[in-house]
């Protein structure tokens, strides 16, 4: 599975006119695949709306950067502002969609992404605000961890970043919707079977029976 598969699949979720905040890594890469004719307003939590690609050398502005303090450009029509205004957008429900990575997600849409006791200490940054305030939350991640263990759990085992907020999970194996009562399989990645997704997912997939007859092409 090519690395950009997940990023390309995220991009199908962009709808014209959306205000979107993208997490670092694969979510940010998805901006490269925004469909032709779809205009999405990208927000960055350090204080920018409608930012564009990296500048060329010599054309940077030391105070125009993304949330990782890396250089970006502002597009015509863009705006810059302080971080209180930025989080008013985020917490106040003005952002249509966020796409974030995760360590674990569970069948009720809770997400763990900021802490592994005794192993990983980063602080939550803006993740809790984004997950609380954005109207639609998409998690993009590999389906299993590097040891092959499921990252989609019945209940998250790690400290939560937010409880019951995730709408859609996009992985290298499948697309799963968090819906009424649990998880629903929406799509299989090329070459992946429903049985494989079920085996690699700890949370219960409620509609798995409907998928069992589907032939892989």
């Amino acid at each position: 599975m090519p690395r950009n598969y997940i990023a390309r699949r995220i991009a199908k979720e962009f709808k014209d006119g959306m205000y979107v905040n993208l997490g670092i890594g694969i979510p940010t890469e998805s901006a490269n695949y925004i469909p032709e004719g779809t205009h999405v307003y990208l927000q960055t939590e350090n204080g920018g709306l409608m930012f564009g690609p990296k500048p060329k050398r010599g054309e940077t502005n030391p105070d125009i950067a993304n949330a990782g303090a890396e250089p970006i450009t502002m597009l015509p029509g863009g705006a810059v502002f302080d971080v209180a205004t930025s989080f008013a957008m985020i917490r106040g429900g003005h952002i249509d969609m966020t796409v974030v990575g995760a360590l674990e997600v569970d069948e009720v849409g809770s997400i763990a992404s900021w802490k592994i006791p005794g192993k990983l200490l980063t602080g939550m940054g803006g993740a809790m605000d984004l997950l609380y305030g954005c109207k639609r939350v998409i998690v993009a991640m590999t389906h299993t961890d590097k040891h092959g263990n499921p990252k989609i759990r019945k209940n998250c085992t790690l400290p939560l970043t937010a409880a019951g907020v995730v709408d859609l999970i996009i992985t290298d194996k499948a697309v799963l919707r968090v819906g009424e009562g649990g998880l629903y399989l929406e799509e299989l990645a090329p070459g992946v079977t429903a049985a494989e997704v079920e085996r690699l997912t700890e949370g219960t997939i409620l509609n798995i029976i409907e998928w069992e007859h589907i032939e892989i092409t």
Partner: protein
Amino acid sequence: MAVQITPEEAVKKIIDKSSVMIGGFLGAAVPLIMLDLIAAAGVKDLTVISIGAGYRGGGVDIGKLVLNKQVIKYVTAHVGTDPNLIKQIVNGEVELELSPMGTFVERVRAGGAGLGAVVTPVGLGTEVEEMAEKIMVDGKPYLLFKPIRADVAVIKAYRSDPLGNLQYQGMSNTNPIMATAADIVIAEVDEMVEVGDIACEDVGTPGIFVDYIVQGHSYEERKNIYEELWIATNKL
């Protein structure tokens, strides 16, 4: 009303055990010269308050104070970018006070605006509940956080006039908020201009909040410093 002083004079306002707010965002729009001088002065047992621990890899922004072991407590939303700081936290050398980023910002704003608390739903259902008091408003649960203030705030702006009116360019990020929330506010600027050169509608922080202004690197110097950093870290 602000007074222009040299960075060397300004750094004397920070003493052992001071609480110090540093404006900027993970290394961007930070007061570069003042950070160098605070590190050189060697003042210790500082409580440092900033939104995140500097540029990825450490050693930049407040990372300089971390390398010098000048920090005894760090109040922030994120430490993941500075491996040196994480090590000091794990070793118990630095006490860590975390809050979600939007909450952190509002705590500073509350500190500057004379408010008694920040009341927010963010963090409910997570470990953050243990960092705050849970209260009910109109039958709905919220977390109550206390305001944050500092002895000294060191912030970064683009230009200042002699009255201390500050103009920002690019993302002002935490700077205008921190400008309100300390007993002594020191603004490092690219350029000093005359009264009237900053149009009233371009004033990002009114001079009423600013005590001292120091001349920092020029805009062109800063542009070169950041381009070198970004090129060295494969970001440009």
